């Protein structure tokens, strides 16, 4: 299994190289010159050239890329054009809030989504099922910025229970995490439900009943374990994309996370920031996928890696 993990990590290297090239090229395709954005359109041509060289933007795009990769191996992702701080340090500062939101949102949505999904499957075609399906549909189709505003309206403005800005205390983390959790609950409920409904009609569930296994054990042990694979996939994908930052929620709650950092970087034509952030996001996404893949084999013994 360790061998498999190593192999998988090695396999991602070519992918990361291609990805970095694409990002590198694409940010430069966006109209707009970072030097001019910073120094004004009517900057004198000699100071323009000096500044350009200082930022490492001189030479052809290939030369620039090679320079960037060389520095990358020294652990240097360049310096932000806009904030003048090292990109790596900036990402480090913003990774923690993103991680808190991603982990919190994933844990919350997993707990509620799996619970709802199980409940809907047990009560298949009865009121509880229909109710939960409609509820999850509402969750799925509500944009996160909208539910964020509603939550702020109720819990910050009306009830004055929770702060609506930043991530300064654990209390401040509640609303953004709930917002992210709610959006994911809907799809997870549906995945869990359909996966469970598929499993409960399998022969081995009937065998378990014929053995006298209590119904509760059948649902939570015999059936759920088998229904877990699609659920895990769904959770993993969601967690991966949350690690890439939840820009809308970060914006509404004024949290400086990776998502906003990237969007601001694109707006400022801050090439090093965009390149570095996308690379970090890609790596975390790949790692999460690898962990999910390794979890599959823990859940289902038929899945073996070689």
């Amino acid at each position, binding site marked *: 299994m360790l061998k498999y993990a190593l192999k998988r990590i090695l396999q991602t290297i070519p992918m990361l190289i291609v990805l970095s090239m694409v990002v590198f090229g694409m940010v430069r395709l966006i109209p707009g010159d970072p030097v001019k954005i910073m120094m004004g359109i009517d900057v004198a041509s000699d100071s323009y050239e000096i500044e350009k060289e200082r930022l490492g933007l001189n030479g052809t795009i290939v030369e620039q890329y090679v320079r960037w990769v060389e520095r990358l191996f020294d652990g240097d992702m360049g310096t932000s054009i806009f904030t003048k701080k090292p990109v790596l340090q900036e990402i480090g500062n913003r990774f923690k809030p993103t991680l808190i939101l991603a982990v919190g949102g994933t844990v919350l949505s997993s707990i509620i989504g799996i619970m709802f999904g199980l409940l809907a499957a047990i009560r298949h075609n009865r009121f509880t099922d229909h109710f939960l399906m409609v509820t999850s549909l509402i969750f799925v189709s509500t944009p996160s910025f909208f539910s964020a505003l509603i939550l702020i309206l109720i819990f910050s403005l009306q009830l004055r229970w929770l702060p609506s800005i930043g991530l300064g205390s654990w209390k401040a983390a509640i609303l953004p995490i709930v917002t992210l959790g709610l959006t994911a609950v809907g799809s997870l409920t549906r995945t869990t439900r359909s996966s469970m409904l598929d499993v409960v009609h*399998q022969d081995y569930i009937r*065998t378990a009943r*014929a*053995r*006298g296994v209590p119904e509760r054990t059948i649902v939570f042990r015999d059936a759920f374990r088998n229904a877990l694979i699609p659920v895990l996939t769904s959770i993993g994908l969601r967690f991966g994309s949350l690690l890439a930052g939840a820009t809308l929620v970060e914006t509404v709650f004024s949290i400086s996370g990776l998502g906003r950092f990237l969007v601001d970087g694109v707006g400022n034509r801050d090439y090093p920031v965009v390149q570095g952030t996308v690379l970090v996001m890609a790596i975390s996404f790949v790692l999460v996928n690898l962990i999910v893949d390794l979890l599959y084999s823990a859940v*289902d*013994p*038929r899945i073996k890696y070689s």
Partner: protein
Amino acid sequence: MKPILKVENLTTSFQGEEGRVTAVRNLSFELHKGETLAVVGESGCGKSVTALSILNLIPNPPGKIDNGCIWFEDRDLTRLRKRDMRKVRGNQIAMIFQEPMTSLNPVFTVGRQVMDSLIIHQNMTKKKAHAAAVSLLTSVGIPEPELTVDRYPHQLSGGMRQRAMIAMALACRPDILIADEPTTALDVTIQAQILNLLRNLHDEMNMSILLITHDMGVVAQLADHVLVMYAGEAVEYRKSKELFKSPHHPYTEGLLKSIPSLTEDHLVLYNIPGSVPPIHAEIEGCRFADRCSYAQPYCREHKPELEGDRESKVRCHFALNVT
């Protein structure tokens, strides 16, 4: 002697798209201690539904036991509370299924599934149950039982899985074993091994077996008595040997004729003409009349009843081989 299991007027139906479909109608039979009773018939004749009804495993909805009693130890299983029914399942009445490939849970080891009923019904500790599972696997002829006990179903062959399934069913030494097509999904050589195993275990443990099958060869090897079902009804009940010698019901005769013979030269295999009537069709006369070569106009108007004595019953106006 008092029968260990007595089914009286069992009627089980399913809600279909075109209304309720009666899969088993007014079925009655008895199973005695140590006896092997085979229930035979074509696909869809209601034999599996009968087996599932006994353990109350009919999926509801759409299925439902509409009528009848199933007496076991002076209790009517159809009226048992869920909890009490669960104590019967796997403990006093156990069941093995047709598909060893899909009937074992793929994510748990074979041992864990064998241990399950021991832990549930006999309150064994995990450690004791594990040891018991090893000896059960040994008794059903699984090689390397100490290793197999910790293997997963997909690591076992079909025959081994069916053996594991039998071990699972026998874990609590049940009074009755219901075997629903236990050999159908297996290779011929493995079939013979499994049948031998069932016969040996039956002799050893003196349990009663309700054998559901469509294979007359299996019936000949295991059964003491045979109940022939057609379109949800019992049409003949006989001692196995007598049934093979001189079937009373034309349908039974047809079933026996359909067994290919090695000694005779058949260019075309015999089959019973026609097909089973649509299960939801209400038929006034004999349900087999349309396919019966002996049918008279009388048969289509008057429904025959299952008649005879305790050892021999037939549902036919013009029963064959009756003196």
